[in-house]
């Protein structure tokens, strides 16, 4: 599957002028609120029409303002998961799930109902009304409803933004299974670094209505322009052991291993960890008597001053790159320079929660 989108639309003073291509997998549209992510995904779904634009999926043109082509939303067969679920209140959960199947083309092999229900863990809810469901349950049903309409592409617009952390943690594993077990390509809109780091194969970073960067999560999320609060390294590793009494999991990286608070993972599973650069300290000697569990040894690969008195240090640990954000004064005091051997003291490892 290849999705090509390019659109320009003036919305009051805000101008959206963005485009990207996707070859399947999970493409994350990432950026702060107001960066035009939702506007772009609404254009893809056909919920709004750009002033100028083109949208193609494989060889089919769905939108071409120059040739006056506009395929309406109900003929695009793109599933859409909205932030607020938008379940039909007059239908039961089962009827909600079946809604899209009535309209799916008969030649298409619709996703197996029982498999989707099992995948999302909503079997016990089938005969209930949406009004009686919790936020997390509603969102899972909404995802199932979109999947069962046999979409060519699944658009997810901040599906977790309206939920609290606990509910998010409840749904994220389902989204991971969705990514790994279905072949439906996904465009995932989010402003959360941790969600993007955990789910995306490719990240399209947006700012002020434009695309700023495109790449893998580890490339894009470590860029200086990524949201400064959450910028950092995204590393991939395997779960080595799980320490149940201490509620910790050990993750093996390319060289070192790190310990993270247990986040319902399985031994041997492949996971991504996100280490925010603001939560990494740099030491020239191995520190002792610290509460931090993770101290990685590595050498300085880059020193990047940002001009505000802060410096980003890239520390190479084997094949992995850890980022640290420290003051220029610290760089001077510790006499940090390229190639110097240092210890990265990691205060928090968010195994994406």
């Amino acid at each position, binding site marked *: 599957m290849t999705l090509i989108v390019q659109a320009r639309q003036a919305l009051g003073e805000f101008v959206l002028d963005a485009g990207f291509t996707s070859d399947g997998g999970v493409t994350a549209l990432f950026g702060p609120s107001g960066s035009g992510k939702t506007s772009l995904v609404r254009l893809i*779904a*056909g*919920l709004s029409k750009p002033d100028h634009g083109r949208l193609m999926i494989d060889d089919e043109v769905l939108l071409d303002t120059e040739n006056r082509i506009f395929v*309406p*939303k*109900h*003929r695009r*067969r*793109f*599933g*859409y998961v*909205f932030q*607020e679920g*938008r*379940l*039909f*209140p*007059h239908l039961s959960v089962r009827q909600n799930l079946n*809604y*899209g199947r*009535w*309209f*799916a083309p008969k030649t298409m092999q619709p996703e197996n109902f029982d498999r989707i229900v099992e995948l999302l863990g909503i079997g016990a809810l089938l005969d209930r*009304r*949406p*009004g009686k469901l919790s936020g997390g349950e509603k969102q899972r049903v909404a995802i199932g*409803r*979109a999947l069962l*309409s046999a979409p060519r592409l699944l658009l997810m617009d901040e599906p977790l933004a309206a939920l609290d952390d606990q509910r998010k943690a409840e749904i994220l594993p389902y989204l991971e299974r969705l990514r790994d077990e279905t072949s439906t390509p996904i465009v995932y809109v989010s402003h959360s670094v941790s969600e993007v780091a955990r789910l995306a194969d490719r990240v399209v970073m947006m700012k002020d209505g434009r695309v700023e960067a495109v790449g893998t999560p580890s490339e894009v999320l470590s860029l200086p322009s990524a949201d400064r609060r959450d910028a950092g390294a995204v590393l991939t590793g395997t779960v080595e052991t799980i320490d149940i009494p201490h509620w910790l999991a050990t993750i093996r990286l390319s060289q070192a291993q790190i310990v993270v608070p247990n986040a319902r993972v399985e031994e041997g599973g492949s996971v991504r960890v996100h280490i925010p650069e603001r939560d990494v300290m740099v030491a020239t000697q191995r520190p002792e008597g610290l509460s931090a569990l993770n101290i990685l040894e590595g050498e300085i690969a880059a020193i990047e001053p940002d001009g505000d008195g802060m410096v980003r240090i890239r520390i190479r640990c084997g094949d992995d790159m850890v980022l640290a954000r420290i003051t220029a004064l610290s760089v001077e005091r510790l006499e940090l320079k390229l190639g110097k051997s240092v210890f990265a003291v990691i205060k928090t490892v968010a195994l994406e929660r």
Partner: protein
Amino acid sequence: MDWLVLSDEEWTAIRLSLKVSAVAMVVSLPFGIAVAYLLARGRFWGKSILNGIVHLPLILPPVVIGFLLLILFGRRGVIGAFLNEYLGIVLSFRWTGAALACGVMGFPLMVRSIRLSIEAVDRKLEEAAGTLGAGPAWVFLTVTLPLILPGVIAGMILAFAKAMGEFGATITFVSNIPGETQTLSAAIYTFTQVPGGDVGAMRLTLVAIAISFAALLASEFMAYLVGKRVHIE
């Protein structure tokens, strides 16, 4: 208790009233939904004019409406002559004409009720239905219509009640012919015009009260059933 026994003529008036009101309600329903939808959602030139025309029966004296109907739908009226000549439909001095008069008088009530419920529908749900593959007609049938059902039922009951009580427009347009156009209200009026008719008028009044009450209870019950089904979050 002999005075409570209804005469044949009175039964005829009751049956006629029920028939006229039911027909007026059912026939005006599709138009009511269509006009309410246009007023709630449409953006077109002359919307406020349409709104005004729909509301005329509510503000004009019923006799005026009856007279206008006579001009338009009478045998020599603009529309009436056409209907008579090409479709063989005669409305003046027939029960169908009474149903037309009742339908017109109840129309603004029906449209108002349905329009309000259409305006209350969350359009995000219709958008969601569209992304699931439903075309505009299916969205209306499977999402909008079920959600406005309480408003539609309320509108139908209002129109029915208005039709049961309608007097001025009906008597002006189709007169007061026993067995053809003499509805319950007209029959009560007739009783009050003859000496000794008070007993008959009282009988029919009790019947009118019973019917109105039954309609009210039925609407409450249906609203309850629908409300249970359409549990809005």
